């Protein structure tokens, strides 16, 4: 059967009931009218344009990728794929791919060879190491490389060069997930499993528009909702998202008030005695403090601050309080908001005090945004050390030094690794003078773009960009390294629920493009990085070797990979870590029986102060939690830093749409996806539009003290007083190239504020005060916002989002599915 998957992003229903197995449904798309009979071979991989980790096979014909098909056997997706997976692979074949290294000569980027490019990078590194030392060198990586690459990068940066400045763009998408887990469980590691959806009777989604961020996971929820005894759904989101439309209760708080709302929910749960006292006394510390704190937050107070009816808060709390199997999920609506970690931690608190962890249907999914973000976190590619080692525990450092065969002093651990926003600040001040950016696009994705462009354009900063396209950031670089991407190299990656997939190489990369791993190893060899015995620091030369190295590094740690191998990952389904001798088939749920990785000598983190972000000392943590229980951390509500004023009356939030990924470098090069959401738009509520006599398609100017953007109006189901801009749209496909040029801005981040959560260091994209004014009437034009998603219109009649014949994808229902 064929289905227009742009018009129907979640495909057909295959209903199922609680405790049943989710039926399979195999989705596929082949280009140019090819059929499966035309395909030369299928190569195993998983999806990369979101964090869900759906197993798929890549179709190859004449040594080119020609399509994809979901893997029916995979535990994550049971054969399904989302629109970005079905169509996004076409970007691999784009004629815009970088095929040769580029170097800046007389102000212009010109083609060069690998030796010249790498020598430039290595020589600058050496000069700066001689002149200033490792504090001059920084690496800004991504959530899109493979495990093997992050681990190698972490080794080179921390163990070889000895710099503390390593972070990923996971800082923007998943830093708060990690931080919240570290606060509550003293260690990263996802408590829940996707299969909890099969069992839950209540699913609460906090700031998580799952329908657009993880379409296949949402399909699983939709299938439960269509089946017998469906779960109740609670949605916290200021927008009328597809999740909100399916919700039993939809709470739409004012942006910046999440902690207030969470404290009111906890207040109700505790005041009504819906606490699992036995679980709490056996497995958690901090309940008295939490109870005392939330006593000050009755629903009436929250109703005022959040502008949500107290009765709705009570009803939501009642549903959560009576849940028998509660699954809670959290994403950017919390992570990119004011008091991000404090709010996300309160979600953990709900599950802890209700004793809802480690059993089927009882879990927390602190989500990620990107496909390999989990690996950035666990391999030391972000502001963490490999395998969740604690930078503040000398024994962990010694252990890591032993694995790497380096002097412990070589590994910086005088404070937690430098986070991205601080790295930008050091570059602004001139003490970071070398920045190597991989597979990400800070010139579009970071807040307050005018400032970021200034920092990245400085002559005194040597900027290396490793990417597959000439992104906005690459255009500012001194050296551009052309990389191979998914399908062109082998490696593994891990999704939100700890499922590890192998992604095999299907085809050769274009031109001289090289796998990121090869580039890192080449850098280490040219730099002459050695261990303490004078042997090469990086002991492997291919992905499988790196994986074997990583396994040793992970031995005995929470994210134990020692029971896996490429052979074991090939064929079949994905495997969830920890996977070791005791758990040879992986581990579906961690924290069963209330056992945590929180022992002071074992844990990854001693936690931080929820307001100041100051790390707790080992002594403080030992006093608080001597026997390694879960930690209930209370948080006071603080007002957001930028609040609406007469001049800037709206609260601006930014976010994503179903059809695009990050800064569109790939998805805009897939025709079906680009056509579904071709241009930036702004969303306002019907009331706010009526007050100003705005109609669908009017061209508006949006301003904040940082900048201005123009966008056409979509009147959507967003709450009054809030404006929404998608963040995907930059300048690479405009005459401006890397910035607005003489044209008006269209990147949402022209407007956002430089401010971050002090605990997770995640920048805030959902709290800025903005003004809007009309600069041109619609005159029959509509905004380009999709009608199928959170941007669905509530006024006017813009054209429906359809993909037509070009977007028809195969759907094989194998278990009696119905529409």
């Amino acid at each position, binding site marked *: 059967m064929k289905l227009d998957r742009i018009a129907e992003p979640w495909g057909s229903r295959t209903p199922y009931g609680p405790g049943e197995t989710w039926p399979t449904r195999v989705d596929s798309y082949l280009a140019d009218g090819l059929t499966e009979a035309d395909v030369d071979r299928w190569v195993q991989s998983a999806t990369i344009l979101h964090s869900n980790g759906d197993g798929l096979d890549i179709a190859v014909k004449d040594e080119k990728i020609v399509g994809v098909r979901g893997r029916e056997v995979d535990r994550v997706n049971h054969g399904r794929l989302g629109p970005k997976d079905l169509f996004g692979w076409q970007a691999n074949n784009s004629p815009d791919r970088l095929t040769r290294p580029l170097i800046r000569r007389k102000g212009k980027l010109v083609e060069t060879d690998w030796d010249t490019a790498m020598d430039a990078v290595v020589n600058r590194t050496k000069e700066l190491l001689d002149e*200033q*030392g490792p*504090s*001059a060198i920084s690496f800004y990586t991504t959530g899109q490389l493979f495990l093997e690459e992050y681990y190698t990068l972490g080794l080179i940066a921390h163990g070889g060069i000895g710099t*503390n400045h390593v972070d990923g763009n996971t800082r923007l998408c998943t830093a708060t997930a990690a931080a919240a887990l570290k606060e509550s469980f003293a260690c990263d590691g996802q408590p829940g499993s996707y299969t909890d959806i099969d069992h839950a009777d209540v699913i609460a989604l906090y700031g998580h528009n799952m329908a657009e961020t993880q379409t296949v996971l949402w399909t699983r929820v939709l299938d439960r909702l269509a089946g017998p005894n469906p779960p109740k759904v609670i949605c916290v989101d200021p927008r009328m998202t597809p999740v909100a439309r399916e919700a039993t209760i939809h709470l739409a708080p004012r942006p910046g008030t999440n902690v207030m709302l969470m404290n009111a929910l906890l207040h109700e749960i505790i005041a009504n005695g819906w606490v699992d006292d036995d679980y709490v006394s056996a497995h958690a510390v901090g309940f008295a403090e939490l109870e005392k704190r939330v006593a000050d937050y009755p629903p009436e107070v929250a109703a005022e601050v959040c502008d949500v009816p107290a009765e709705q808060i009570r009803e939501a709390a009642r549903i959560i309080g009576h849940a028998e199997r509660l699954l809670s999920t959290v994403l950017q609506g919390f992570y990119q908001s004011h008091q991000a970690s404090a709010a996300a931690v309160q979600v953990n608190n709900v599950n802890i005090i209700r004793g809802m962890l480690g059993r089927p249907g009882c879990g927390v999914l602190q989500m990620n945004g990107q496909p390999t973000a989990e690996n950035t976190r666990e391999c030391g590619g972000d502001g963490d050390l490999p395998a969740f080692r604690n930078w503040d525990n000398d024994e962990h450092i010694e252990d890591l030094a032993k694995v790497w065969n380096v002097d412990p002093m070589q590994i*910086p651990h*005088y*404070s*937690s690794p*430098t986070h991205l*926003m*601080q790295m930008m*600040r*050091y570059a*602004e*001040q*001139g*003490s970071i003078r070398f920045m190597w950016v991989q597979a990400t696009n800070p010139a579009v994705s970071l807040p307050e773009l005018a400032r970021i462009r200034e920092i990245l354009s400085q002559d005194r900063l040597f900027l290396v960009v490793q990417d597959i396209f000439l992104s906005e950031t690459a255009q500012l670089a001194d050296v551009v390294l052309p990389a191979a991407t998914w399908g062109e190299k082998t490696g593994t990656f891990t999704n939100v629920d700890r499922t590890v997939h192998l992604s095999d190489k299907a085809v050769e990369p274009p031109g001289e493009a090289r796998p990121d791993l090869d580039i890192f190893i080449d850098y280490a060899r040219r730099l002459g990085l050695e261990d303490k015995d004078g042997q090469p620091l990086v002991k492997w030369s291919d992905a499988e070797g790196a994986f074997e190295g990583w396994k040793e590094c992970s031995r005995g740690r929470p994210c134990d990979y020692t029971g896996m191998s490429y052979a074991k990952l090939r064929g079949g389904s994905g495997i969830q870590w920890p996977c070791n001798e005791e758990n040879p088939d992986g581990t579906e749920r961690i924290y069963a029986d209330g056992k945590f990785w929180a022992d002071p000598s074992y844990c990854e983190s001693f936690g931080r*102060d929820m*307001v*100041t*972000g*100051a*790390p707790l000392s080992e002594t403080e943590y030992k006093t608080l939690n001597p026997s390694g229980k879960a930690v209930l951390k209370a948080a006071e509500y*603080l007002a957001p*830093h930028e609040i609406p004023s007469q001049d800037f009356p709206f609260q601006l939030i930014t976010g994503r749409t179903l059809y695009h990924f990050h800064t569109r470098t790939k998805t805009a090069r897939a025709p079906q996806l680009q056509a579904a959401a071709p241009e930036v738009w702004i969303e306002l509520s019907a009331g706010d539009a009526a007050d100003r006599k705005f109609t669908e398609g009017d061209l508006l100017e949006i301003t904040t003290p940082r900048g201005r953007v123009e966008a056409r109006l979509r009147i959507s189901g967003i709450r009054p007083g809030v404006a929404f801009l998608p963040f995907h749209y930059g300048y690479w496909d405009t005459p401006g190239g890397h910035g607005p040029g003489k044209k008006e801005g269209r990147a949402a981040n022209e407007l956002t504020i*430089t*401010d*971050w959560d*002090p605990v997770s260091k995640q920048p805030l994209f959902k709290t800025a005060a903005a003004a809007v004014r009309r600069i041109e009437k619609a005159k029959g034009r509509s905004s380009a916002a999709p009608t199928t998603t959170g941007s669905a219109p509530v006024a006017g009649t813009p054209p429906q989002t359809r993909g037509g014949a070009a977007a028809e994808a195969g759907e094989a229902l194998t278990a009696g599915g119905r529409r």
Partner: protein
Amino acid sequence: MKLGMAIEELHRSENDLTSTLLAMSDRHKTDHEVFYVTRDIAKWSREHVAELARVGRDYGLDLDPEAKDDPGFVASLRQKSSELMGRRPEPGLLLLADLRHLHRQAAGISLDWELLAQGAQAAKDRELLALSERCHPQTLRILRFANAKLKEASPQVLAS
């Protein structure tokens, strides 16, 4: 009975701490976390000032419940000069000096709360004891913030 004196002294110190935090915030506008966190935690010392003024009445004191504020133009001048210096390395050293000062000041106030709590116990003043038990932990959090920030910021300033 010298408790009144102790309250008055602490009221003055908390007032100074508010000014220190706000001035520090303005001076480091381009160090965004310092800018915002110092403002957030200045709220605590502000509340301490108000609370001390309230209990001070029981001891015949007439203390201002409002923490004194710098005139707006001083703050904006500090913010402006911070922005002008934003691309230069010197503010790094200034930040270390400011954090060191903040640490010393908060440490002094922490001791003062300790003294007040001891005195309150001796005088069997439950309200005063409860007040110091409520406020002292926040002063300690300010102290730890200064210490942690100093630890985090100093390597880059000193080794570059």
